[in-house]
């Protein structure tokens, strides 16, 4: 279930990479912004979980588009590495903007906590099941968007072959804005899912940046099904590692997975081979 929750921001990371061709490390801050937006909707406006998740998606998406236009788009002609480094700076700035307005204090949602369902020697948390369900709905909605809408198809076209897409008259800046809105909105959506199980604070997203990045790389940078597979692989791998490794080394599983997968498939599980 941890894998399902991690998959959402990992998809966001890969959606941005697929279209804009750079690793946007600011996904961590958009996850935090989504967590705060969802928290505000839940506690200040009294919204339940589902509309709060929608608020997390929309707010993170809008902030994502605005910051991309202002901070990252002017740097894109300088190359993917320059833009990726700028995204690290953007992440730090956004984290501190959140800190400036909300402080460092942890915050929680106005939601009851339920005991686990038990049976057959197993126990499942209702909240974890709900969060995993929400993650699956978000993934299904994204796949539907990419498969059945005109905007989604233009995104796929640009991701598959930017040159051909431009020859066909596709408006690249518009597609970039759609990709930023959807990708960074999903990061916000995932950030709220993570905060539901942990807490809302300026580091909510930063704490999961490495597993998100690991999931995206293992699955294949730019591949949306790959992000899902990578996240589940990392999530399940981390849990299974406890059978053979002390819990202290659980965080290293993501990097071990990167090492193993990239040794045999340099483009990741679902990534296209570098041309």
């Amino acid at each position, binding site marked *: 279930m941890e894998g399902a929750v991690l998959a959402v921001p990992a998809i966001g990371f890969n959606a941005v990479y697929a279209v804009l061709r750079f690793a946007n490390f600011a996904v961590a801050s958009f996850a935090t912004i989504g967590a705060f937006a969802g928290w505000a909707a839940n506690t200040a406006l009294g919204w339940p979980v589902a509309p709060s998740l929608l608020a997390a998606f929309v707010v993170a998406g809008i902030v994502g588009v605005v910051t991309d236009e202002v901070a990252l788009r002017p740097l894109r002609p300088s190359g993917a590495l320059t833009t990726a480094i700028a995204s690290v700076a953007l992440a730090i700035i956004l984290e501190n903007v959140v800190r400036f307005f909300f402080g460092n204090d942890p915050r929680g949602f106005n939601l009851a906590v339920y005991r686990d369902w038990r049976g057959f020697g197993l126990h499942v948390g209702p909240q974890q099941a709900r969060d995993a369900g929400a993650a699956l709905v978000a993934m299904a909605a994204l796949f539907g968007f990419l498969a059945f809408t005109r905007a989604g198809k233009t995104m796929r076209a640009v991701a598959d072959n930017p040159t051909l897409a431009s020859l066909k008259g596709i408006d690249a800046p518009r597609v970039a804005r759609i990709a930023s809105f959807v990708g960074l909105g999903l990061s916000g959506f995932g950030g709220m899912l993570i905060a539901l199980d942990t807490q809302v604070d300026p580091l909510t997203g930063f704490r999961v940046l490495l597993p998100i990045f690991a999931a995206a790389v293992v699955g294949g940078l730019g591949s949306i099904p790959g992000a899902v597979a990578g996240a589940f692989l990392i999530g399940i791998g981390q849990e299974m590692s406890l059978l053979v490794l002390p*819990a202290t080394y659980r965080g290293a599983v993501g990097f071990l997975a990167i090492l193993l997968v990239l040794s045999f498939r340099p483009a990741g599980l679902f990534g296209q081979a570098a041309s």
Partner: protein
Amino acid sequence: MPITRRAALAAGLAVPFIGHARAAAEPVRIGALCPLTGAGGQYGPSMVKVIQAVADQVNMAGGIGGRMFALTVADTQTNPDATVAGGHKLIDVDRVAAVVGTWASADTTAVAPLCWEAKVMLFTVSGADSITKLPHHGYIIRTQPNTVLQMARVSQFLLENKAKSVFALSSQTPFAVDAYSRMAEALKQGGAQAIGQIVYDPHQTSFRSEIDRALAAKPDVLFLGSYAPDLAVLLRELYQAGYDGHRLTYGYAATPKALASLPPAVTTGLWSFDPSPDLGSPAYAAVRKILGADDPDPYSCQVYDHMNLIALSVAKAGQASGVAIHDTIRAISQGDGQPVYDAVEGMRLLASGKAVNYSGASGPCDFTPDGDIESCKFRFDVVEGGHKKLLSLS
């Protein structure tokens, strides 16, 4: 005006005194290296406020023999890398005589070698035993009780509450293993048992597997060696897992804001412990006034003492270097001198030739040769309805 031989001679003789006059006016440069962000970010801002307030009080009273405190603030980010970067800047650029307020043990461990190599005094509120075992040559002073003191008192509390088997879920810190070993020894002597420990990576979104393994050992008390972010996850998941046994954690993790972020059903019955400030001390009252808070946190109390100890050491030594503070701190913090609770009063006594013994907001401030405090009080609380309620103070 022509320069005569007599004027040139007078000017030449005056040169050494110009340097001396400038040295007398040199400020006492202090670096506040506090956790303004990261896991300790709930404490850093109030720590800096207290440090600044003591500097202002001393400066308004005329400084330390004419020397003013000059304060530079840096953020540890509760991260060893950032702490070392901040330490380098304070020591190499700002030329501080002392660094004050490092909070997380990993941060203090990382920055300590920079301090002792540069002969800069390091005043810390970190608790790991290993810190004062470093080869620091006397350049570390710690006002937080080490794990020996803490775990002796925690074990005593557990035994008083009829604990028989204790399992520890501990965040990965420099003191996690030491703390468990100390607790295991003390419990064994009291007829109880520490039955296992899992040291976890705190940057996880779930600890369900760790909790399953801990509960499989059937403990009657879980010791949660956490920081606030991971404590919130652990408490929620323990509740979900149906655990209704006792839970004990560090007071710095169970902060009022962290407790308020969780439903009361999840936190009710949680025990927490803190090294307690000296609640009856005038120095404690001064910290309350500075922060405008009825119950200031222990770290703000400790940095209040750090600054007062520095002021008194510099006043005693007549010099504002790390070496001077190193050489004189125990002459003003312990012994037979007249008890004082703030630097301004202490400096007045020192100026009149009297010996002083500083007692602070955090306790007596008497230090072992290693730099540890010799004793302090502890408070134990229980959480009810989302708020801490005092159980014992001794």
